[in-house]
């Protein structure tokens, strides 16, 4: 019955080259609404490359990408955001020099037109920013007009997730969201991921921490040397097996030179 559903995102035979380096090799994968997918693999396995395509940061060298069955032909972050794809990344997404309110709406600032001239609606930006601060568990003392440079690591992640929710995203990609977080903050971020899945979002979760993701994900996709080597539901694989596959590899020919 799972297969009856149409996939929300579908990648077909996607290849990605950076100059002379092949980052993705013939990857085909489907993602469905309302699932939390763990995207795992060793460093350089192609996890970030894969999500960079979905979030429009890079275009695939060859292959097809479908969203809601529609073929995607141009790739740009703005387009992806407009189509409901939000990405929270470890290092990017927030401008430290701008206030929380301004970051919340960066790139999609609400405007009030006065005589046709678009003025940003600072009142709305402050109000929504303040709502996010309380709803997503940031410290009480955090000021909506303060710079985001003052937020803790966990608060930054929570803030990015809040932003994704606010813009009614259907797909949330979380790229290593719990790196450098305290145990408590990590729990908080993982709870948020599960909550969003329960609100029938598609959550794609990239991590190194196998045991952590095994507790919350519905399905795992394992990448190795840019190729998909496994795609298994949680109930078919233990965390130990998952970790062993990543550590030892499946010994496929993905690492050897390709022809054609």
């Amino acid at each position: 019955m799972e297969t009856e559903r149409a996939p929300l995102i579908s990648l077909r035979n996607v290849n990605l080259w950076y100059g002379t380096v092949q980052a993705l090799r013939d990857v085909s994968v489907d993602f469905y609404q309302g699932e939390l997918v763990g995207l795992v693999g060793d460093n350089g396995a192609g996890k970030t490359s894969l999500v960079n395509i979905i979030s429009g940061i890079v275009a695939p060298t060859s292959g097809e990408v479908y969203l809601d069955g529609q073929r995607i032909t141009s790739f740009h972050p703005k387009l992806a955001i407009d189509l409901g794809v939000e990405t929270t990344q470890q290092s990017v997404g927030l401008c430290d020099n701008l206030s929380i309110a301004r970051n919340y709406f960066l790139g999609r600032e609400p405007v009030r037109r006065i005589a046709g001239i678009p003025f940003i609606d600072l009142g709305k930006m402050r109000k929504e920013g303040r709502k996010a601060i309380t709803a997503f568990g940031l410290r009480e003392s955090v000021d909506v007009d303060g710079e985001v440079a003052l937020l803790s690591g966990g608060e930054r992640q929570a803030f990015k997730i809040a932003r994704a929710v606010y813009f009614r995203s259907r797909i949330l990609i979380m790229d290593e969201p719990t790196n450098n977080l305290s145990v408590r903050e990590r729990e908080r971020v993982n709870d948020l991921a599960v909550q969003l899945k329960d609100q029938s979002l598609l959550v794609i979760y990239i991590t190194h921490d196998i045991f952590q993701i095994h507790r919350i994900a519905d399905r795992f996709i394992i990448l190795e040397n840019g190729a998909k080597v496994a795609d298994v539901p949680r109930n078919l694989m233990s965390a130990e097996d998952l970790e062993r596959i990543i550590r030892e590899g499946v010994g496929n020919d993905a690492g050897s030179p390709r022809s054609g």
Partner: protein
Amino acid sequence: MRVSLARFVLKRPETSAVVVTAILVTFLTITTGGTWLSFANLQSVSRITAVLAIMAFGEALVISTGEVDVSVGSVFAMGALIFIGVGRTVNLGVALLLALGGGLLIGLLNGAVVAFFRVPSLIVTLGTLFLFRGIAYGVTEGFYFGASDEVRSRLIFNVMGGANLGGVNVAVLWALVALLVLHVVMFYMPMGNRILAVGGNAASAYSRGVNVARVRLIVFALSGLLAAFAGMLDAASIGYVDGSFGELMELEAIAAAVLGGCSLVGGRCSLLGTLLGAFLLRAVGSYLVILGIQPQWFILLLGVIVVLASLSDRVLTKLLFRLQQR
């Protein structure tokens, strides 16, 4: 309460410019026995401040994105030369459009190379600085372009810098208009938010869907346009222009922006501060004139001011961060 007031004051990027300006004006007035504060001097200082400020506003926008435009001195000359040169031979209206259009085009050229090829902006604009300075000397061939009395009596000429209103040159009004418009664009319109975001963290801005290349192109185009406009205003109020017009002004524009609280690494901008920075520099220049000191001292001083301003910029940024973390 005391902390939050200190926080508010320190957070404003123009704070140091306001303080330094206040001290400086007092110092200049006292040491010249009041001459500095005379109407005649203020009249001239306000005009030359306005001209520099208009150019420095463009520089401030470029600096806000973390780039720099050193070509503005030559664009200033091109604006002035086209306006007077075409104005006295063809038509002032055409001259006005060509001068502004020329500045815009040079700005677009700088911006396109920086935005699309990612060549360091210092090198790109250093190239155009000398390219258009060479052209400025080339077309004037060592002479100057002067405006005839007939040209000087025309309305466009007077609106574009020729006239004084109540003793104040129209350039001052233009500077205030530019300040108001650009301040609103920077802080109350989406474009300003994006300019600051690109300067703060270009990768983050891009990931939020901001068209980073377009933002860079726009700030350079505006910088070119404003520099040419400033050159035009200056030439019209003086009445003639030569090949060396605007030499060294690129450094003054950068200094004004940095003194005014624009961070050289981008992401922090104050246009009001930039205006004060321009005033500060021009006030010191006029002071040297009143004291009868060789104008060459100003070049020396300018070098020191630029270095000190960027040093204090660094210190201030660190201090600010520490204060906010409390």
